[in-house]
């Protein structure tokens, strides 16, 4: 069952097209990673989801309701953490958390205390004295203290230390275990890799890639550094080998994950002296998208 259903959404600010035919689907009980470079349209998409701005074209449904028309009733079941948490300087963190949870509806005092302890937040301080990370903690505590069905998190960990980031990840996984859905926009790719079931990549207002993590993993490449006894033939011609470089008699290159077997067989025929491999990671894949690499992609290639 899909919780968020975005179809062909376009958003224009004057002449500038911020979003251009964006599709997105987030299912119940899944953590959806939403990534893309700065200014790609992540926050714009999220603000449309929240009914704070209106899509110029296309349909946006959350829980089967229109995100603009029925924003208020949708928000009863949504918890949102913005990337740039701007709070009222003269209220304390505790007061803001109470305000947010109350305005959302359901209040769970015990959960609030527990989360403040886990995030090590001092709620008696005025918001003007909080660092960015502490302001994010305020937003995170108030989000996870409410019994939402959908969590929309816009770069929620950009100011948190690694320990707090782990607490955050635990909270997301707890929500997921409880059958909640999460839309997580993030630049921290290890976080996305660890938490998300599916990922969508947006660039220049268009979704250029989306799919499950395992699908995307097929798109990743393994980094290899090889030295052989005999001189190799033209390695660059072998299918699946990229970015070939020669370094002091050794070759470093990337191999498409599903072509790895064939490449290794080919290499071993020359007698391997040294073989170093770096594990396949999504980072390189994301980087390729972030940098706007025009190499052919197997699916979702709309960015030519």
């Amino acid at each position, binding site marked *: 069952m899909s919780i968020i259903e975005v179809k062909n959404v376009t958003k224009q600010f004057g002449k500038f097209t911020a979003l251009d035919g964006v599709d997105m689907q987030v299912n119940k009980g899944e953590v959806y990673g939403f990534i893309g470079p700065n200014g790609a349209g992540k*926050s714009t998409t999220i*603000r449309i989801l*929240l*009914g*704070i*701005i*209106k899509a110029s074209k296309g349909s946006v449904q959350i829980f089967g309701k229109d995100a603009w028309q029925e*924003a*208020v*009733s949708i*928000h*009863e079941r*949504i918890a*949102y953490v*913005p990337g*740039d*948490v*701007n*709070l*009222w*300087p*003269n*209220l*304390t963190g*505790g*007061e*803001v*958390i*109470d*305000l*947010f949870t*109350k*305005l*959302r*509806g359901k209040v769970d005092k015990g959960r609030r205390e527990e989360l403040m302890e886990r995030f090590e937040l001092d*709620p*008696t*301080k*005025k918001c*003007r004295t909080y660092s960015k990370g502490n302001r994010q903690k305020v*937003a995170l505590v108030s989000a996870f203290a409410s019994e939402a069905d959908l969590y*929309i998190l816009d770069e929620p960990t950009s100011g948190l230390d690694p320990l707090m980031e782990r607490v955050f990840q635990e909270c997301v996984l707890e929500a997921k275990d409880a059958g909640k859905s999460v839309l997580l926009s993030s630049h921290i790719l290890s976080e996305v890799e660890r938490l998300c079931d599916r990922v969508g990549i947006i660039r220049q207002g268009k979704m250029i890639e989306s799919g499950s993590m395992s699908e995307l993993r097929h798109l990743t490449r393994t980094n290899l550094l090889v030295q052989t006894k005999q001189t190799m033939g033209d390695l660059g011609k072998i299918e699946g080998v990229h970015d070939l470089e020669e370094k002091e008699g050794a070759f470093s290159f990337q191999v498409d994950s599903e072509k790895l077997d064939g490449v290794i067989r080919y290499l071993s025929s020359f007698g391997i002296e040294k073989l170093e491999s770096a594990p396949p990671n999504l980072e390189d894949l994301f980087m390729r998208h972030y940098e706007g690499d025009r190499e052919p992609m197997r699916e979702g290639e709309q960015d030519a």
Partner: protein
Amino acid sequence: MLSGRGTTTLLRFLVRRDRIRTPVFGSLLILITCMTTVALANLYNSSDSRQTMAETMVNPAMTAMLGKGYGLENYTIGAMMAHQMLLFTVIAMAIMNILLVARHTRADEEEGRVELIRSLPSGRLANLYATLILAFLTNMVIAILTGLGLYALGIESMNLEGSLLYGAALGAAGFFFATVTSIFAQLSENARGTIGLSFTLLGISYLIRAVGDVSNDALSMVSPLGWILGSEVYVTNKWWPIVITLTFSVLLMIVSCVLYSKRDLGAGLLPTKPGKRNASASLLSPFGLSIRLQRTGLISWAVGMFILGASYGSVLGDLDSFFVENEMFQQLLNPENGHSLTEQFLTMMMSVLAMVSTIPALMSVNKLVGEERKGRVELLLSKKVSRNRLLGSALVLSTIVSFIMLSLTALGLWTAGNLSMENGMDFWNVYSAAIVYLPAVLLIVGFGILIIGLLPRVTIAGWIYLMFSFFVVYLGGLLEFPEWLSGISPFGQIPELLVEKRNYLPVFIVTVLAGLCVVVGFVGYNKRDIQA
């Protein structure tokens, strides 16, 4: 310790940041000053008409409002213009300086920008030095240009020395409040507190001078505004007030530099205490939140409005006896229609007081756009809060604010008036004469809502409308504007209950217009994007 390395570079940077704001303010100020002078010169072109004007100046209300009249035996255009304009122009300069210094000191510090500068090889005090030098230069330029501008008008009674003294009075007072603000920027740890404390001091200075000018000259000498008015521009041209004001400014400047060099960056010298762990139930709604955010400001305004009303009321007794003695005034205000002169004077003041009461109401409603620009409206709308509820909360709050401010003004006026007059006034008469302006205040508020719904980028429009109203209603009589012009302002439409027939039709029309503005504003607010 007191190093100012990099001050000149920073100064150039600050000039660049203010390259639009300050020139616009300065040119407007000079333009308005010169235009008013020309208008006065044209209106009062005979010495008879000026002497008549001089007669009206010798009363406690005018003294409280503008300072003591001087040179009245030979009331020249220069004396008239300086008496009527100097104090309020000085206040405008003070406000500009308070905002300028707060912006470049505590506000920058609060936002972490000073930290960036301090991390560079710049002196610890460079930012404060640069700000103070900027303030000094800004005031000096405005002072000289105003002086030259007034002299250039070529009005007989306005010689070069007087004109330059007029400018110098503006500049010196402006710089004084710049240095005052630089002190408060060290005491308070945020820009809001800095501006609040500075404005409070400005308000107290005005009140002390008002009371002092009416009752006790020595008291006026406690107030920096009292010093400035001692210059008697265009009559005796005394320069000592400029010297005193600048001397005190230099002392304050030194103190603020020492305070700044001793404290930690980001810290304030006034203590702060830990806040609440839990929100009280009254905070937990958009309405409660608005009240909480505006509480301090609104309470200050409420006290201020009561005092303002009372300060007018306190002179009513003197005014009454003054009117009795003054035959000319009796003719001027034409008491034939059975209303006392005091009542007539009161009605004139009522519309002005109502317009002042509108300021906190409009500020309150515009707060919603301020919150939007800071990304906080988004935080609320992402909860179970509808746009109607949010805008409705702002509307209800500002309506209540309008009502309270008007009521307190009337109460202050009546209370102090009763104490000072031999025959007391009927409370309901005074109160209804004030509260009849509520629809006019609400029309400005409604106009504010309309702007929020349709053109949130130009919230200044509400202020322009209010300033226009003030200009045409208050100065309109003096400068003899055509009547239709003051009709555009809702305050010009409201019947003057104490002296006019009770014609409620305009009140009704203004109320309906206010309602219409509100409806359009709500529709627009529901349709538009919330700004990032």
